């Protein structure tokens, strides 16, 4: 059942199955747009399976498609290891599988299970970069707030690590509320927690680091009318909303979480592997896609905004 709706010139169109953690999150949504946009350009038909942030649902969906004919697959697992079985079956039918953002299986077992390559951002780096920028803005002293994502996600844990390693270098910085506050990527939980933390003290809180732009933006309005109005806020993701917030000066800075690059790389790599019959051993085990810091001072704001534009999907 291979229909060629793809604008691939003479190349025979390919068919790839994509799945990600959950389209509820804008990050995953952008990934989908990217894959579909670049799929068109490269003559790859992208079929999407939403993980709905439920490992069982994702597994149910993937189990159903392992027998269909794919040229390659790219999965972002809701939960590490949960897709091992279907991936093994795909390997039996030697269909290359790429892992996005979250490890499908532990690195040492990747090839044995049938994962060719893991394409991921550097979570620790992103956390650290945004935090370092925050420290620079507040001159390395004062109170800061640390709002985390879903504690169960390796991404969130990485960003926490990045934050904490950097903050450890600044003895005069105190984290309000006894450390990271996990908010499950939920704007509302983040907002409730943030509001409460703001009330903890009358003396101005210097800054805040959020694991995602979404949560940060949802919390911005809370500052109005509090003694903390001049607080610096940095976060991670650097996509449309985030960049706009930076441009408007609401966010001090954000580090790009290169979702588009990750999905694009996966797609391009996949079609190389298939079209050029590349052997597995020349494909790197891990590809870490870079994500720069963006603020009004870094000077890359316009460029990033252009790249992040949903019509280009390039960061």
């Amino acid at each position, binding site marked *: 059942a291979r229909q060629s709706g793809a604008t691939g010139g003479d190349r025979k169109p390919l068919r790839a199955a994509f799945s990600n953690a959950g389209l509820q999150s804008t990050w995953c949504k952008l990934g989908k747009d990217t894959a579909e946009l670049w799929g068109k350009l490269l003559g790859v038909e992208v079929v999407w399976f939403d993980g709905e942030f439920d490992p069982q649902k994702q597994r149910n969906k993937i189990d159903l498609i392992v027998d269909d004919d794919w040229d390659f697959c790219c999965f972002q697992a809701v939960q590490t290891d949960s897709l091992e079985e279907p991936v093994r079956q795909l390997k039996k039918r030697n269909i290359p599988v790429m892992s996005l953002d979250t490890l499908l299986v532990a690195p040492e077992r990747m090839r044995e299970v049938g994962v060719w390559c893991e394409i991921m951002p550097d979570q620790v780096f992103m956390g650290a970069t945004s935090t370092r920028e925050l420290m620079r803005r507040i001159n390395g002293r004062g109170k800061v707030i640390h709002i985390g994502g879903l504690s169960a996600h390796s991404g969130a844990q990485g960003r926490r690590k990045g934050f904490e390693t950097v903050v450890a270098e600044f003895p005069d910085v105190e984290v309000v509320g006894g450390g990271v506050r996990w908010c499950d990527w939920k704007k509302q939980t983040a907002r409730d927690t943030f509001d*409460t933390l703001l009330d*903890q003290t009358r003396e101005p809180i210097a800054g805040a680091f959020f694991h995602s732009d979404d949560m940060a933006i949802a919390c911005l309005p809370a500052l*109005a009318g509090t003694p903390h109005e001049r607080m610096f806020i940095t976060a991670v993701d650097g996509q449309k909303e985030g960049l706009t917030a930076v441009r408007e000066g609401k966010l001090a800075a954000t580090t790009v979480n290169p979702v588009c690059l990750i999905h694009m790389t996966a797609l391009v790599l996949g079609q190389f592997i298939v079209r050029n019959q590349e052997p597995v051993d020349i494909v790197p085990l891990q590809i870490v896609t870079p994500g720069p810091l963006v603020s009004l001072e870094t000077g890359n704001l316009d460029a990033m905004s252009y790249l992040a534009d949903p019509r280009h999907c390039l960061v």
Partner: protein
Amino acid sequence: MAVPPSQNRSLARRLFGRWEASDVAPLVSLAVLVVFFALVAPGFLKPATVVQVLKQGSVLAIVSVGLTFVLLCAEIDLAVGMLALWTACLCGFLFQRPFAAGPSGAGAAPAWAVVVAIAVPLATSLLLGLTSGLLTVWSRLPSFIISLAMMNIADGMSRWLTKSENLNVPSILKTIGNRGIEITNRFELSYSALLAAAVFIVGHVVLQHTRFGRYVYMTGGNREAARLAGVRTGRIVVACLAISAVTAGLGGLVNAGRLNSVSLDQNADLLLSAVACVVLGGTSLFGGSGGMGRTAVGVITFSVLKVGLNQIAWIDDLARPLLMGLVLMVALVVNGLLSKNK
């Protein structure tokens, strides 16, 4: 069941009108909770906390008002959370149409467009509520089941409509959700809290001083008896489910305003929180007894619980949900026991 000994009954009477143990219980556990946090969370007792409780409680409050109607007539509505989500999503969707703020959601929307973007979603949630109601009455299935399905439908509609975009909402909602009236420089009365209060008062008046309200109680108390007395109980049930749908929608809008935009991750645990609130207030799940006053107490208790827990700095953040659960259990059981021994 049994008649309490006349003397302490009359005492209770003298003290607070026609209150009974079951009316006082929720207040007791609220008081206990406040004392508890005053002890474990330094700086809990300050105006700012009140502001927070009001702010964070208001969405819950608005939704609980509708849910109270439903529980009073001995039905339940599991769809409130997803109806709230759907209403907000549709609002965002309309708001980003060309006729309003445009695709970016940044443009300036004409007043009428804003009205449309707010009124139409509320209308649809009303419609969905009516649907659940009519299906419940017609199929004679428990509303538990119907609203369970309706929950899935509303959720599905939201995903399908928004394509999981993050949508912008009218600025008036943002104002309601985030601004308020400065009373003192320490104490700001948020608009959302005022709105919630208004909804509460309307709800209370309807329940206590209109025939409809009375019929709600009687339908919940004994549906057959109400029917034999000429009450069209079917309509009452439908109306209650419709009301809860609308309040849910309103809550969703306010919430979206507060969070500056709407996305699919919102209102996920609104249902359970709202149920917990109403039940903490002591409104019966079996209909006929309870009221807005109680629900108000319940909402405040629940918000105090949330805010208080967030204020305790010295506990491991990962232990908070557990503590939440334990305190909730204790509060509920204590309520139950207090109100039982009449």
